[in-house]
């Protein structure tokens, strides 16, 4: 169906006269879900882009108003299904903030542990799919993809023995965590971290010594630090554009202030800089996870008794905004409580949603092949964009 109403597109003139409108998505090999970009092309050059989202809208915020504080954390993980742990964490943090619920130190440390493991798993999936965007399923990209999936499996195995689930965990609950570490989990985790740390070096050797990879990423899709701050991107995109901002450092939550780690920042703002930031974050996450395993304090894992009924947690009237540093950036949750067992209003701030907003600013002027490379470097997860 052709568009009947003119849509507002951001266009630059290129001097050509013959334009081609091409639909990229919502069903497309590199749409990373269901993203639709209506590209206006002159030859191979993109001169206009209209980004259409909303194909994966599942009424998540309304759902949050109909489910109790006990029920929703396992649904919250479905907003960003690639980094489910951090989405859960954002929600329970908001509940704890509004309800003034304490969290024992051990639970806070466990939350840090799973959040960092989740960051590793999420970045692994990003690296694989991004290389696939540039190399294709019938090329070198698929090789990196399969390597990355192999390592991600190891992390998911850890999550499986911790929570019983591999993708959507329900690990967090208001006041703490639902599960404690099983026996022999810590040594297995250490082993996995060791393997991943070694493999990260292998990927770097495979990609960074590869001239074709460099020409495809360096100087491509530059986001200036002004643009990044104006649009409101966060996470690795923001740090790849030279802004040193990480919520784990800027507004520590869940006792992040107790850990030693570096915030990787690159100034170039191109795809390669974003790649570099994420590769460095792998190592920092491994470092944090090791510190947790080293000094995990004893004690209860929750300040509340185990859940017996869905309406058990009640939050007094009030409102508040809690935010955490997810794998893709700032994941925030704004909660208005009216004293009952369900929130009165829930609002998500998805990192991917804000990051995706930068695309119309940087896509005009690039070649078609770079569109997928840039989109992959933004690392959107559409569950989080459309909610």
């Amino acid at each position, binding site marked *: 169906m052709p568009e009947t109403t003119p849509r507002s597109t951001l266009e630059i003139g290129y001097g050509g006269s013959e334009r081609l409108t091409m639909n990229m998505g919502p069903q497309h090999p590199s749409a990373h879900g269901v993203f639709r970009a209506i590209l206006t092309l002159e030859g*191979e050059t993109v001169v206009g882009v209209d980004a259409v989202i909303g194909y994966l809208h599942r009424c998540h915020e309304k759902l949050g108003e109909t489910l109790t504080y006990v029920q929703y954390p396992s649904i919250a993980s479905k907003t960003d299904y690639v980094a489910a742990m951090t989405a859960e964490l954002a929600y329970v943090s908001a509940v704890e903030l509004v309800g003034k619920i304490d969290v024992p130190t051990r639970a806070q440390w466990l939350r840090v542990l799973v959040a960092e493991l989740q960051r590793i798993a999420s970045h692994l999936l990003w690296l694989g799919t991004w290389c696939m965007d*540039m190399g294709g399923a019938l*090329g070198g990209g698929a090789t990196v993809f399969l390597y990355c999936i192999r390592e991600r499996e190891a992390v998911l195995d850890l999550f499986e023995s911790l929570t019983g689930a591999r993708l959507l965990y329900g690990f967090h609950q208001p006041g703490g965590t639902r599960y404690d570490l099983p026996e022999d989990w810590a040594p297995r985790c250490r082993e996995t971290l060791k393997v991943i740390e070694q493999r990260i070096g292998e990927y770097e050797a495979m990609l960074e010594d590869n001239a074709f990879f460099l020409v495809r990423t360096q100087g491509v899709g530059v986001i200036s630090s002004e643009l990044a701050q104006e649009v409101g991107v966060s996470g690795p995109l923001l740090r790849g554009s030279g802004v040193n901002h990480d919520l784990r450092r800027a507004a520590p939550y869940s006792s992040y202030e107790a850990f030693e780690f570096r915030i990787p920042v690159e100034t170039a703002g191109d795809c390669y800089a974003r790649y570099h930031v994420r590769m460095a974050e792998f190592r920092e996450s491994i470092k944090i996870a090791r510190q947790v395993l080293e000094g995990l304090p004893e004690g209860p894992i929750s300040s509340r008794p185990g859940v017996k009924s869905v309406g058990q947690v009640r939050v007094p009237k009030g409102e508040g905004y809690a935010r955490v540093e997810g794998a893709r950036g700032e994941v925030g949750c704004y909660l208005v409580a009216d004293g009952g067992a369900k929130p009165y209003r829930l609002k998500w701030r998805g990192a991917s949603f804000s990051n995706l907003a930068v695309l119309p600013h940087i896509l005009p002027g690039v070649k078609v092949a770079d569109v997928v490379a840039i989109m992959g470097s933004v690392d959107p997860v559409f569950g989080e964009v459309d909610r």
Partner: protein
Amino acid sequence: MTLPPFAYHALVGFVVLNVVIGMVTYVTLLERKFAARMQSRIGPYYVGPHGLLQPIADAIKLMLKEDIVPNTADRWVYNLAPIVFLVPCVLIFATLPFAPGLGVADLNIGVLFFLAVSSLEIVGLFMGGWGSNNKYALLSAMRAVNQIISYDLPFVFAAFVPVLLAGSLQMSAIVAAQQGTWLVVVPKWFLFYPVIGQLAFVAFLVATLAAENRVPFDILEAESELVAGFRVEYSGMKFALIQLGEYAHMIGTSFLGALLFLGGWLGPGSELPLVGALWFLVKAMLVFLVVTWVRWSFVRIRVDQILAISWKLLLPASIVLLLATAFWVAARGGHGL
């Protein structure tokens, strides 16, 4: 009983055609197994012992698929394109001698025929892209024309270096020129010809990758941006014909590389035609595996970068190389060796 020449050539042509098609199906299995090993997986395993019947199953599956013609396609162009694409890809085997006297026709301009015919595939390719009436296919076809024009010249120049050294365009004469050894152990293949041979082989390989539309030059397939490029609308047997043509072209070029640079069928026991053919096959598969190895380790480069590599680097370099070879041969009184 001796057959009349026409019948003999027709018979050999029939045999070669079928051998090529059989080889194509099994080369896909070889590539999939090889790629699987590179990616630490097993590859096709369940159909037959170690997946040996997988290509047959694939062929049957493709034949049973529904043949879809898009409503808005240019029917004539769309339906003819796979055939126009396949014919030159198979025709290149016509002049390839697989062993002394074992081939359809050993033309005295064999290399020229090969190069000329192999670049004809672009016609079918563009027809497919245009006739599909699909924007992805059209973009891909435009890229294909760009790429073939840019890479045919370095491809031809690199292939002409051994021709100059051997002093003949006839394929059997080129192989004959590589007979013997240097310093007792090193075979006189043109790959081992000091400096010139190695440079020409590298240029040939790079141009081959582009001419075969393989990663990192597979911009016309580009499944992450153009979905499947010019064949996005094809299904069933028409898709199979395009695949067949592509792999036939790839194998043909691998054979050419083995013939020009690796001494063709020369090897211990190559006096027997079958042993010679086996040597030739092994060498061609080596070239093919190098191409595959590159395919599964590199990312794709962009169309403007591909053109830049060709016009700014590969083409001048191959011209200089060809000129240098010509001067060298002339200085030695017309003898390369």
